[in-house]
Structures are given as structure tokens and as C-alpha cells.
């Protein structure tokens, strides 16, 4: 076994041990939060410390993600690839916003209200057209019972939610059909989906804690 391969093996084993140990300690802290006399248990303190470390690491991860974004666009500019002007704009706006935030942290909200808010709201507004187009395409290309149920439900909810011009609320639709669909039928489906997601999360989480899945690169 050469040195490189040995290092990889050591890192893989250490990483798996770190993932399992940190995960089990945090999970134990959730389920054994208090001692018999009602005081906070040692496991809770350990859980809080580990969570604090994870939050700090997440902060580092944000910076690494942003550095990676910077790297990719900087390379694009260096190689004068197609669209490098956009990359230049991205880097300038990134650097300017970050520096402004560092120098005047109290006033960085002006950037949020001037750039982020209008762009996000406008992108949301674009969804009106995109969603209408998508529903028309659904009717034209995938016409089956389920897509009809989907679109009829959406239409009933839309008609039952807001009063129509000159008509006001449609009797029966606003006060009976809409609440029944939204609060009973959709709630039942949403509950089933939520339970399914929770069971999936539980399985995936436990597989990681048992070391069966190693998405962090724990396989040598």
C-alpha cells in the first residue's frame, strides 16, 4: 500500500467515525435531554456544542461556496469565454455587496430593498405567465384523469378564493367546496406526503448514522 492510498484509507475511516460519533451524540442529546431530577443532561450540553460547531462550519461552507462561484466566473473572464461580461458583472456586484456589508453592516439592507426585493418579486411575477403556459401545455400534451383533477382543483381553489368582478363570491364554492378541498382533501394528501418525506428522511438519516451511506466521501 503506497502512502497516498494509506492516507486515503485513514481519512475515510476517520471521516466515517466522525460522522457516526457526532451524529449519535447529537441524536442522543435530543432523546435524553434531561436527567431524572429535571436538570439539563451532559448530552444536551454536548449536543449544543456540536450544533454550534456545525453552524460555524456551515458559515465556512457558505464562504467556500461563494469562493467557488468566484473561481468559476473568474476563470470564465480569464479565458474570455462566451458570456464573460455577465461573469464580470456578477463578480463586481458580489465584491461590492460584500465589501459594503463589511464596511457598513447597518446599511446593507438598502442593497436588499434595491436589488434583491425587486428582482425576486419580478421573477415571482414572471411565474404567472410561466404557470399559465405550463397548465395549457399539460392539457395539450398529457391529458389524463389525474391532470384534469389537478387543473380542476386549481381552478376551483382560484375561483373560490377571491371574489369575482361583478359576481362576488360564488355561493357554495367559496363557503363549502373550497374549504372542503383545501382543508380536508388536500390536507390529507399533504399529510401523507409529509409522513412519507419524514419516513424517507428517517431512513436516510439512520443509514448515514449506521455508516451504510457515506455521502461525504467516506468510501476510500
Amino acid at each position, binding site marked *: 500500500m503506497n502512502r497516498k492510498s494509506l492516507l486515503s484509507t485513514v481519512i475515510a475511516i476517520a471521516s466515517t467515525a466522525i460522522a457516526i460519533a457526532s451524529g449519535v451524540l447529537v441524536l442522543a442529546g435530543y432523546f435524553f435531554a434531561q436527567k431524572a431530577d429535571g436538570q439539563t443532561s451532559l448530552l444536551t450540553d454536548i449536543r449544543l456544542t456540536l450544533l454550534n460547531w456545525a453552524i460555524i462550519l456551515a458559515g465556512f461552507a457558505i464562504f467556500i461556496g461563494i469562493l467557488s462561484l468566484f473561481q468559476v466566473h473568474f476563470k470564465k473572464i480569464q479565458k474570455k469565454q462566451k458570456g464573460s461580461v455577465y461573469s464580470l458583472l456578477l463578480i463586481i456586484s458580489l465584491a461590492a455587496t460584500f465589501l459594503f*456589508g463589511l464596511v457598513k453592516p447597518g446599511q446593507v439592507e438598502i442593497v436588499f430593498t434595491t*436589488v434583491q426585493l425587486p428582482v425576486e418579486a419580478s421573477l415571482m411575477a414572471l411565474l404567472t405567465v410561466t404557470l399559465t403556459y405550463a397548465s395549457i401545455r399539460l392539457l395539450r400534451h398529457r391529458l389524463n384523469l389525474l391532470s384534469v383533477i389537478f387543473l380542476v382543483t386549481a381552478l376551483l381553489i382560484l375561483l373560490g378564493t377571491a371574489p369575482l368582478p361583478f359576481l362576488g363570491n360564488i355561493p357554495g364554492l367559496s363557503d363549502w367546496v373550497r374549504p372542503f378541498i383545501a382543508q380536508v382533501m388536500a390536507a*390529507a394528501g399533504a399529510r401523507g406526503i409529509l409522513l412519507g418525506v419524514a419516513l424517507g428522511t428517517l431512513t436516510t438519516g439512520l443509514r448515514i448514522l449506521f455508516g451504510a451511506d457515506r455521502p461525504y466521501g467516506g468510501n476510500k
Partner: protein
Amino acid sequence: MSAIFSANVVDLITGGISFLLTLMVLSYLIGDNPAFRVAVYIFIGVSAGYAAGVAWHQVLFPRLIVPLLSGSLADRLLTVVPLVLGLLLLFKLSPRTSRLGTPSMAFLVGVGAAVAVGGAVMGTLFPQTRASMNALDLSGAGQYWLERLSEGVVMLVGTVTTLVYFHFGAKATASGPQRGKLVSVLSWVGQVFIAITFGVLFAGVFMAAMTALIERLNFIITFLSAL
């Protein structure tokens, strides 16, 4: 006087930038174009810069730098661990050194998995199961007991059949893996409930988008009339 004047100038400039960005994004309605791309790239840059600022001011400075510089000895020792793990994470930037960052990723994934398991059990499985049972609780329903019962039954059927839809187990047969008949029927009913749920969500998103469109159009008209 000059303060009011400068405040007005700042308002005019920020309003003008917002106005231009709104128009640039809405220009996508006539198709993908350079103005839309400029707006989106600026948006990504600003969002990334803003996120970096928030990460620094809300996380790294108060939780890492302050304890390291002015904390007790215990605080400093406890902060060294995430500092080392964070520095190791920086090796992920290069493919050649990325495996040195694996222990840090493992720590994040381990803690994340535990939080996810805890959240799934305490935050979803128990409360949602309890809510499903409560839907069939008729105490206090009075003369509306039949209505409450029918709603509870529909909710129970919807929840169970939706869950059955996500059950992908199948028996091995000569003609390949096949679901049982009962499971197939229940999962079809579950599909109907899922379609209704997504229909309601679609309507909700559509209404939110419509509200945003009205708000943006109102902003454009207000800005132009204020000039």
C-alpha cells in the same frame, strides 16, 4: 435642507435601480434577452455577497472570532475545533486536495443527519400521526358529529392511500415485479389525493405570483408618475 435633498436623491437612485431591474426581469416575457441576463447575474452576485456578509456578521464573527479573541481558555479551546475543521473545509476548493476536507464534511453530514432524524420524528411523524388521530375525535362535535366523522374518514383514507402510493415494494412474478392488487388500487386513490394536493398548492403559488405581478406593475406606475 441638504439632508432632505440627499435623502431624496438616494430614494431616486435606489428607486431608479429597482425600476430598471424590474423592467429587465419582466423583459423575459418577450423571450430570453441580454437585459434579463444582466439583471439575473447582478442578482446572483448581490445575493452571494449579501449571504457572505450575513455569514460573517451573524455566524463567523460572533461565534468564532469573538470567543477566540476575548473568550475564556475553555471557550478558546472549544472554538479551535470548528476553526480547524473550517480550515480543512477550504481544501475542498481544489480537486487535488479535496479529500483533506472530507472529515469536516463528515462532521456536517453526521450532525445534519441527526438533526434531520430528530426533526422527522419529533417535528413530523409524532405531530402528524397525532393530528390524524385527532381528526376522528368526535368529542365536542355535538350535532355536527356526522360531518366531523366524514371529514376524519376522508382525511384518514387520504393520508393512508397517499402513503401507500409511496410504497414501492413489489412481488417477483414470471412477468416481472408486480404490485399486489389491493396496493395498486389504494395507490391509485392516493394518486388522486396527491393530484388534489398539488392542485391546491399550484393555485396558492399562482395567486402569490399574481399578487407579485400586481405589486410590480403598481410599483412601475407609481415610480413613473412620481418622476
